[in-house]
């Protein structure tokens, strides 16, 4: 809300400059967001008086004005239609910087004396636009007749506008008077409330107002005024409105806006000539009811909106905007003034549904003090009587069946100290609460303080609210900084968090960079990665429907990710644009739907994505001729390391068919008959769709939650350090190409027996020395006995056993 400093000072006697005042208010909870200086550039502009006006000898539309401003007296040539002798005007001398009135954008020009049609003009009489006050440029700015001649305009009309942020809980500060009250309480300055005229002598009607929706309208105050005349407002009102950012329209409309800004109560004036019947009716709208608001838009209502109506038709959308059919026009002579308290929720809903947020609805939506309606209406009526000498109040009615009871709150003074952590003496509490108008009463014997909350503080309901008021006025910066003393409870580490850390450290050591992606994906991503029809990656989606968000931002990303890979893959693609090698991993949550009425499961998951050049340019690869690409085996290596970290020896690797992965180059990792992860290369079609034609793109995903659960169960048996040397033997196993290496490995292990302490595959050969359709897998096996040195004979027997097993299980043979 824009608060002009000059206007504010009418209600509070502060001598703090605007910047300092804004700063003090900010520290007390009312943030001064911006200060704008009106008139900062009005150097060489003065208040002048038009002494004489004569016709320009050579131009019909121009006149010569003889203007005096203190010691300055000059002739000005002007085409302004409204200039006249005796006026007080804003005179700009040569050298003044003014806004170019004929430019669409903000441009400044320095005034230079010059000849206009043969007559020398030494200065200029300014319009509002040239001074930057408003867009008005039809005529010159005319000042009040008591403007001090010769005074710099900046002294007379200059102002600083402080923009305060009014948060929803501060509705009591949503007015000039409200800000003044705050300023007075915070600085201790004297407050001057506006005088409100007493209307008790006015004749009261009992039939003027009828509230048919009492739950939505707590109070309706109506005053009928006759003998009004629509004219332009006096300049003091127009200027104050303008400074506050509201355009001046005419005296009647301006008065309603003025009082709204001043006291915070929106008002409305209806032209009585258009009102049919003798009663104003407040009711709910029917479904489909139509109504044309002041902005000339016809609106269809959905039912339940609060309407102000006469005997026949609606005349106003309560709390939001009046109707075209009853608006004040130039010929208005009698009007009905409305000041009411409407239900905040209803008004807010209507304003939103109609996409019509107004100054009025903004105030009603925050919940107004019902006492305000009576005060504001009286103030408005008073201003009308002042501005329209022929006006008089015909009648009025105030329907206010249920005024709020005064709220008293009592608390122990010691509680203030214990809650705030600083000592505030009861005297200071009383002083502060007094400045806030809480009428404090201190009972020293019982150590209690009782306050009566003023009606405009709808936000203060419990004793903690009162204590907060004390704190913010005394000043939060006064609170001492202390540390917690005493013992804190023992921290129990979350095992999942610890597991995630281990994974992170391991993958970083393996050369990965940790990414953190968004948890939402789009339907297109789901399609691309075959996550719906093809099932999940690390997690099966068979019984886990996708979880969707309502009101997703952006709208397309409305699926909670069932896998980390799609998002991580995008990051890899982006990075490949400027990096030769990309190794990314992410540890995060994926979302697997359960019952439509229950929350989804969110297991911790690790995603790995690798693409690009494997070997870095280094001493061993000074001239890399064949650029090796990161592939399935690199991803598998990382996963192997992870599985070993978690002591997972009991897993099997099984071929995997998934629409997004390369057949033949993808596996699922199975433990206890359940998939706990996958490793694979992305299907070339998918890679191509991602813009990675010909790039081998390896991914892996593990269910970290499950991994953690299983790792607790398998305790690795302690292997004593061997006292006898191990023996290494190579086995080249020839099998059909279709046979899985995992099967060969399992067969070897089973047949090698307990002496086997290590096995590593070091070659896969398909070529000239092998029969077509077959491949040779080479393994180096390590045998160790705990208590003896191994003999050839013993190892020979093992070799024979392995050979038989290979033949039986995988139809393979040992190459010599």
């Amino acid at each position, binding site marked *: 809300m824009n608060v002009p400093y000059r206007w504010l000072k009418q209600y509070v006697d502060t001598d703090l400059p605007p910047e300092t005042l804004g700063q003090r208010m900010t520290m007390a909870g009312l943030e001064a967001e911006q200060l704008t200086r009106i008139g900062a550039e009005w150097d060489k502009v003065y208040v002048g008086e038009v002494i004489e006006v004569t016709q320009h000898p050579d131009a019909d539309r121009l006149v010569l004005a003889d203007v005096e401003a203190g010691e300055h007296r000059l002739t000005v040539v002007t085409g302004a239609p409204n200039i006249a002798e005796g006026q007080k005007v804003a005179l700009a001398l040569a050298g003044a910087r003014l806004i170019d009135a004929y430019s669409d954008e903000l441009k400044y020009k320095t005034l230079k004396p010059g000849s206009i049609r043969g007559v020398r003009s030494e200065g200029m009489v300014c319009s509002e636009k040239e001074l930057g006050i408003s867009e008005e440029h039809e005529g010159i700015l005319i000042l009040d007749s008591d403007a001090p001649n010769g005074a710099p305009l900046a002294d007379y009309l200059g102002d600083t506008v402080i923009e305060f942020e009014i948060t929803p809980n501060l509705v009591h500060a949503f007015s000039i008077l409200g800000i003044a009250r705050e300023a007075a309480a915070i600085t201790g300055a004297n407050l001057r409330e506006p005088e409100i005229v007493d209307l008790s002598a006015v004749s009261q009607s009992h039939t003027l107002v009828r509230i048919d929706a009492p739950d939505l309208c707590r109070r309706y105050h109506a005053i009928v005024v006759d003998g009004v005349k629509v004219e332009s407002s006096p300049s003091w009102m127009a200027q104050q409105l303008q400074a506050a950012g509201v355009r001046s329209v005419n005296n009647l409309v301006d008065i309603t806006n003025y009082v709204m800004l001043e006291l915070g109560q929106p008002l409305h004036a209806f032209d009585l000539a258009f009102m049919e019947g003798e009663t104003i009716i407040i009711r709910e709208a029917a479904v489909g009811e139509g109504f044309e608001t002041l902005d000339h838009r016809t609106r269809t209502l959905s039912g339940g909106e609060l309407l102000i109506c006469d005997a026949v038709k609606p005349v106003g959308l309560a709390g939001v905007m009046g109707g075209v059919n009853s608006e004040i026009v130039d010929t208005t002579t009698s009007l009905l003034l409305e000041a009411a308290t409407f239900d905040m929720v209803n008004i807010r809903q209507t304003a939103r549904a109609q996409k019509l947020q107004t100054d009025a609805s903004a105030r009603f939506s925050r919940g107004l003090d019902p006492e305000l309606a009576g005060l504001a209406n009286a103030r408005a009526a008073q201003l009308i009587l002042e501005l329209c000498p022929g006006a008089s109040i015909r009648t009025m009615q105030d329907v206010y069946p249920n005024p709020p009871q005064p709220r008293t709150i009592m608390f122990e003074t010691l509680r203030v100290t*214990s809650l705030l952590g600083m000592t505030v003496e009861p005297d200071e509490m009383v002083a502060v609460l007094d400045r806030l108008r809480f009428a404090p009463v201190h009972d020293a014997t019982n150590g209690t303080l009782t306050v009566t909350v003023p009606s405009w503080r709808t936000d203060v309901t*419990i004793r*903690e609210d009162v204590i907060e008021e004390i704190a913010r006025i005394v000043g939060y910066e006064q609170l001492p900084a202390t540390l917690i003393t005493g013992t804190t409870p023992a921290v129990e580490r979350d095992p999942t968090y610890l597991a995630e850390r281990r994974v992170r450290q391991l993958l970083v050591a393996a050369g990965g*960079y940790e990414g*953190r*992606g968004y948890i939402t994906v789009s339907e297109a991503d789901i399609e691309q990665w075959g996550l719906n029809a093809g099932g999940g990656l690390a997690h099966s989606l068979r019984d886990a429907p996708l979880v969707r968000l309502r009101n997703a931002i952006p709208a397309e990303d409305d699926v909670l990710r069932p896998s980390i890979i799609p998002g991580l893959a995008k*990051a890899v693609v*982006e990075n490949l644009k400027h*990096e030769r090698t990309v190794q*990314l991993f992410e540890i995060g949550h994926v979302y697997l739907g359960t019952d439509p009425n229950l929350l989804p499961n969110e297991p911790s998951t690790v995603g790995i994505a690798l693409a690009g050049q494997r070997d870095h340019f280094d001493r061993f690869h000074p001239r890399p001729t064949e650029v090796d690409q990161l592939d399935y085996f690199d991803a598998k290596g990382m996963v192997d390391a992870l599985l070993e970290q978690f002591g997972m020896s009991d897993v099997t690797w099984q071929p995997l068919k998934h629409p997004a992965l390369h057949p033949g180059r993808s596996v699922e990792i199975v433990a206890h008959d359940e998939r706990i992860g996958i490793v694979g290369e992305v299907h070339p079609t998918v890679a191509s769709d991602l813009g990675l034609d010909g790039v081998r793109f390896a991914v892996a995903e593990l269910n970290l939650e499950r991994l953690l659960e299983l790792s607790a169960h398998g305790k690795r048996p302690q292997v004593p350090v061997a006292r006898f040397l191990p023996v290494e033997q190579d086995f080249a196993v020839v099998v059909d190409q279709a046979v899985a290496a995992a099967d060969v490995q399992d067969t070897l292990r089973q047949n090698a027996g307990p002496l086997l302490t290590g096995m590593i595959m070091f070659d896969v050969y398909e070529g000239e020395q092998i029969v077509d359709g077959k491949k040779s897998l080479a393994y180096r096996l390590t045998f160790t006995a705990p208590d003896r040195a191994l003999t050839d004979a013993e190892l020979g027997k093992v070799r024979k056993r392995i050979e038989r097993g290979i033949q039986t299980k995988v139809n393979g043979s040992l190459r010599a």
Partner: protein
Amino acid sequence: FAVDCAICNGKGCRVCKHTGWLEMGGAGMVHPNVLRSVGYDPDEVSGFAFGLGIDRIAMMKYGVDDVRAFANNDIRFLRDFAHAVS
């Protein structure tokens, strides 16, 4: 509570919306209704709570001027944080 914007040292920039201040988060005493609803007697106990914007804090600590950097996963950006692995 707000801190001096570390990107512009309080002079005003795009990050702090030209105010020189960046809000880090909200903090305060727990409302008695909240204490009551979890079974505490507000006459016996009081509590305080604060919520900090982790991204904002990282921006201030490391001088990152665009919050989207944390979601882009650009290796050129991630590389700078290699020292921060824990």
